[in-house]
């Protein structure tokens, strides 16, 4: 049943899915079903490049006129997004809800979620404690969701007309409809998230930032792999003498250009300030503005940090 769905997607979409490369797992474009890894492991890279490309041209200037892009974007499937990555996608949907460039791209992306049961590291994640169990699927954005059962069979859900149409086309009839009930649960914003926010608000003089500032190299890898880091730059790129592209590219708050203005003045001067800026975005600004977590506890940042900074440890000493 699942094979039929996957083959249909491979034949009709550009498919991005988790795939195994050596000992590691990456989200990348796949052509064959056998390349796809459905073990539910958290991939090294996040899915955000599919939704918010590292660099995208948002419009062109030609002969002093703005030329709107009419690129046909090939339909894409994000196949096998786990619950944490779907939460990160939910944040993007909220942040970029009025962003027409994001929305145009998003309309062409079909999202297929995947769950294979709680990961073994789950007990280590209590510091985040976001409720990942009860009714979680109703609060996640997806078109189709595949839930692996203990008997290795998949329970299938759809949450959109588009998802339903694809299931019908692949002659899958045993599925359940789930109505998306918004990212915020009925009982309100996550209490633990609010507690962390209250702590970070008053943490400016906490020694932890200076301590982290001493070991952090400001390499910015955590921001690159983070599925919720969405900071961006707007800048122009020359095509020829009379043509330029306005591009939106990923920004990184650990790099000096991030806060630099004309005259070479930089506002985030120390590594301690940059680290705190990164945490404040996830645990203060995002929860305050959108009432949803700015960190989905995927721990990709821990994995890539060259000096071993652990996000859950930082939060626990605030």
């Amino acid at each position: 049943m699942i094979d039929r769905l996957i083959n249909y997607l491979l034949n009709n979409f550009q498919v991005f899915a988790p795939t195994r490369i050596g000992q590691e797992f990456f989200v990348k474009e796949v052509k064959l079903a056998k390349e796809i890894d459905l073990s539910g492991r958290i991939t090294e890279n996040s899915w955000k490049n599919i939704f918010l490309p590292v660099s995208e041209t948002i419009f062109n200037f030609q002969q002093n006129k703005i030329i709107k892009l009419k690129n046909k974007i090939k339909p894409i499937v994000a196949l096998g997004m786990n619950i944490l990555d779907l939460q990160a996608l939910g944040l993007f949907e909220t942040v970029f809800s009025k962003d027409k460039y994001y929305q145009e791209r998003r309309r062409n992306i079909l999202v297929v979620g995947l769950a294979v049961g709680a990961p073994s590291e789950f007990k280590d994640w209590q510091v985040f404690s976001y409720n990942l169990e009860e009714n979680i699927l109703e609060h996640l954005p997806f078109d189709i969701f595949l839930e692996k059962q203990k008997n290795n069979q998949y329970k299938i859900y759809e949450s959109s007309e588009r998802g339903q149409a694809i299931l019908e086309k692949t002659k899958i009839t045993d599925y359940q409809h789930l109505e998306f009930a918004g990212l915020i649960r009925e009982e309100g914003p996550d209490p633990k998230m609010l507690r962390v926010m209250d702590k970070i608000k008053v943490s400016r003089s906490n020694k932890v930032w200076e301590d982290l500032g001493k070991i952090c190299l400001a390499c910015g890898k955590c921001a690159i792999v983070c599925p919720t880091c969405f900071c961006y730059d707007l800048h122009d790129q020359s095509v020829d003498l009379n043509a330029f592209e306005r591009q939106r590219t990923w920004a990184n708050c650990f790099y000096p250009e991030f806060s630099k203005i004309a005259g070479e003045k930089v506002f985030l001067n120390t590594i301690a300030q940059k680290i705190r800026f990164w945490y404040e975005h996830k645990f203060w600004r995002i929860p305050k503005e959108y009432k949803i977590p700015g960190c989905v506890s995927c721990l990709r940042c821990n994995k890539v940090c060259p000096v071993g900074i652990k996000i859950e440890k930082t939060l626990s000493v605030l």
Partner: protein
Amino acid sequence: MPNEVIIKKITQLSVDTKLFTLAFKDKIYQGNFSFLNGQFAMVGIPGAGEAAYNICSDPSASKKFWEIAVRKVGRLTSIMHQLKVGDSLWVRAPFGQGWPKLKNLQTANLLLVGGGCGFVPFRSVALEILNDKKLLKNFQVKIFYGCSGFDYLIFKDEFVNWQKFFDVKLIFDKEKKLPKANKLFGVKCDLGLITKLFDLYPITSDATAFLCGPAIMYKFVLEKLKQAGVPDQNIYLSLERRMDCGFGICQHCACGDKYVCTDGPIFRYDKIKETELI
């Protein structure tokens, strides 16, 4: 999406600063354009990018034209300084929260304190008052303007008129000798830092202070305001940060839970005194 504006006039304000008088190419768009004192525009040139500039003309003339003062300090501003009348710029505007509405202020004793090119946003405040008889009658306006040298003064041609209605004081920190009769463009001058003006011309606790200048100026001017007994809630500051989107999304101008582009660039002091914004 940026809109094209045509440069209608260019005025050299000082050795490194030009005033650009602009109007949207689309006349209907221009006819509907409005802004508040202290709001800013994202102004760009294809290929050179965009940056934030305070709109410094009279808001009541916004439907006909509007102006920005541009100091040559980086790549984009250097290219802007080469432009001629009739050339185009590309603009998204207006953005941000402006200065508080003058008629809503708690006191009618207005003090404008500007340092260097931080003086730019006060021109639209001054023009709004000068062009509104009621405001002109109700407000006592004192202007403290600190500048490095005589050659860097901006809006000096307007001082003679301002001096008739406002109490304007200038101070220069890099000049060694005062000009003739200690006056420049009809305005009394002194030598030293801007804080010296607070010693020479004391202010009263009923002042409402608008500040715009470098962070170091804020530190010392805030001390002087505190000594004079001006309450924190009657002090407003204009802050500077890198801005890319203008909507509070891209994060470049974020600090704590504030965005300079949407919550500012003008902030009431008591609301940000515990932050690192200043």
